[in-house]
């Protein structure tokens, strides 16, 4: 099956809030300076957990009206949107503005509150996973499609893909797409009990890697059709795809079949081959299993060129920001093209014989990738891949 190459979509601009920086510029400088956003969690009780650290955003200064109910998820989305709007504008009628955001956890922290002392109707309604997306739509006066995607930790990538499809289908003229998630007690307890969290530092692709740490954040991009997009832009989305493993409720497929299918389909849609790929932003969670499987998949897909293509994981400094991760990573690819620098894989110091690709260890690399591949995977056998083309400065 060879789908036709579909119209590419312009990525006009981006906005973000992360544990290593509260806007896009701070995020980028944090990446290239090797900033470590991992710290002891202070916002909620963690005393009973085995691991008490994560990529917590310590100072969240909210723009007016970003989070009327004190919902942190809406707050993060509002902060990322404010950053996006500081760099670009929504030049479309409200009915032609769409929102597509990905999240693994949605408003689950509101559910924790709704089951506690706050018995209000508003709190209960906030527990729906799509509440933060609708709050963002109200804030941006977006009256077109408002969608929430929840393919676990691949959500941000799936959401950007769904957003591009809305443009191709002429359902909207501008799409604000991306992802977010909040570091909360619910998810910390969940990953703690799964023994997925490391007591050491996060070391993607390192011989000593022993698990992930979680982080929080939000990242949004503004998407437009080529004909509507301003000259000033970050790049283009050339292809996107998703695939299920059909293998296990929580563990990745042992051969990474779903991830491989997603990558191949995204490259097919983009009309590119391994020879065109200049850089890979890996999922790279730093669990022993993920990094080995992902390395194997990339070797199969990229073939003889696999060892020559730089790839990185930025989860060492951010933690795994779940729904935000893939959106942040796609933005990182575009910024690498703009700045001519590939951020290094923070935490990788001792190579693993089973992970033998060029993971850009120790320090950033002077290189200006044009075409980047970004990979993501999550619970429930969710996989997604994006192919983006950066605008070369």
């Amino acid at each position: 099956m060879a789908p036709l190459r579909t119209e590419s979509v312009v990525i006009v601009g981006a906005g973000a809030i992360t544990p290593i920086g509260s806007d896009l510029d701070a995020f980028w400088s944090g990446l290239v300076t090797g900033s470590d956003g991992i710290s002891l969690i202070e916002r909620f009780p963690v005393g009973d957990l085995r691991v008490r650290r994560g990529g917590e955003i310590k100072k969240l200064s909210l723009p007016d009206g970003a989070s009327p109910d004190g919902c942190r998820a809406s707050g993060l989305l509002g902060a990322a949107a404010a950053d996006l709007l500081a760099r670009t504008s929504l030049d479309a009628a409200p009915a032609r503005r769409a929102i597509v955001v990905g999240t693994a956890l949605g408003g689950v922290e509101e559910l924790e509150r709704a089951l506690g002392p706050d018995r209000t109707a508003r709190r209960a309604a906030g527990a729906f996973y799509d509440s933060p997306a609708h709050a963002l739509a109200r804030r941006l006066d977006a009256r077109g499609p408002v969608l929430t995607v929840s393919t676990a930790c691949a959500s941000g990538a799936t959401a950007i893909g769904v957003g591009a499809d809305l443009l191709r289908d002429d359902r909207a003229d501008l799409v604000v797409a991306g992802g977010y998630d909040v570091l909360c007690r619910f998810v910390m307890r969940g990953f703690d009990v799964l023994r997925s969290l490391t007591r050491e530092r996060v070391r993607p692709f390192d011989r000593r890697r022993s698990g992930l740490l979680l982080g929080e954040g939000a990242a949004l991009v503004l998407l437009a059709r080529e004909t509507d997009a301003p000259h000033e832009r970050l790049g283009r989305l050339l292809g996107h795809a998703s695939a299920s493993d059909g293998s296990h409720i929580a563990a990745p497929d042992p051969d990474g079949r779903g991830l491989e299918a997603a990558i191949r389909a995204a490259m097919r849609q983009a009309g590119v081959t391994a020879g065109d790929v200049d850089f890979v932003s890996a999922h790279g969670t730093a669990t022993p299993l993920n990094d080995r499987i992902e390395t194997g998949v990339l070797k199969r897909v990229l073939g003889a060129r696999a060892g020559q293509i730089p790839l990185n994981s930025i989860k060492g400094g951010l933690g795994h920001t779940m729904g935000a991760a893939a959106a942040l990573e796609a933005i990182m690819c575009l910024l690498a093209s703009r700045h001519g620098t590939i951020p290094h894989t923070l935490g990788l110091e001792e190579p693993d014989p089973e992970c033998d690709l060029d993971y850009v260890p120790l320090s950033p690399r002077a290189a200006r990738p044009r075409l980047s591949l970004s990979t993501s995977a999550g619970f429930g056998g969710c996989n997604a891949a994006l192919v983006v083309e950066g605008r070369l400065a």
Partner: protein
Amino acid sequence: MRVAGVGLLTGWGEGLAALPAHARRAAGSRSLIPLAAPPLGGERFRRATRECLFGVTAVYALLREAGLGSEAIAGGDTALIYVTAGGYGASNRAFIEAAASAGRESGGALYFPYTAPSAIPAEVTIEFGLRGPYVILIGGAAATIEALGQADRMLAEGTCARALVLAVETFAECADLYARGRWLVEWPLVEAAACALLLPGGNGMMAGPAERASPLEEAVRRRVGETLACAPLIGLALACAAGDDPWELTGQWRGRRLALRGERSPAGPRR
């Protein structure tokens, strides 16, 4: 797109035949019509939640209705688009409340992965060997209209050879929360799982804004009650059964109503 089959479970029973003429009258004083536990069990499903079993059972009902075996949908050519407004609520609540109580029941490692909305479609992909495109949308009936529109585009583009659109909604474990947020939902709340297997062909269609509820949307609400994301799929089943031509599905959620229209019966021509 063409509809190859529809699978339907509601609190009223399996299939369209189980639906009452008037849900409110049939419900009487009951505000919630729960789904009975499906006859799935044993080793394979020992960890699965109630809502996961409903998702799997609905797909089996579809295959039975369409006269297909599991192999007809297995592999990488079948897309799965799953939609729910609140199908994760029960597992999320159990996990939160287990932490607050002394006992660790529902709070352990086996439970956390089932709190993700992706758990229900994951069990479906595992059971039927689905390895194709995979999208999960959160929202009520309007999100299901979007899902059907996406399935139609994927089929037209050749991203997949067939698409399974699935919705599951359970309410029993969070009935008190739905009672608090009742401006979002109608009554009675009827637990449901519904799915449609879609093939290329027929006329192309696209989701778009709608001013008012279509007769199909009204028929579903009248006959079934509130099923959130399941409603458009139940409407599709009604349209197929009646051979509606033209047909219009609408779905509303959070004040937004979307429509999907077709000119020939979505089921026809039957082969």
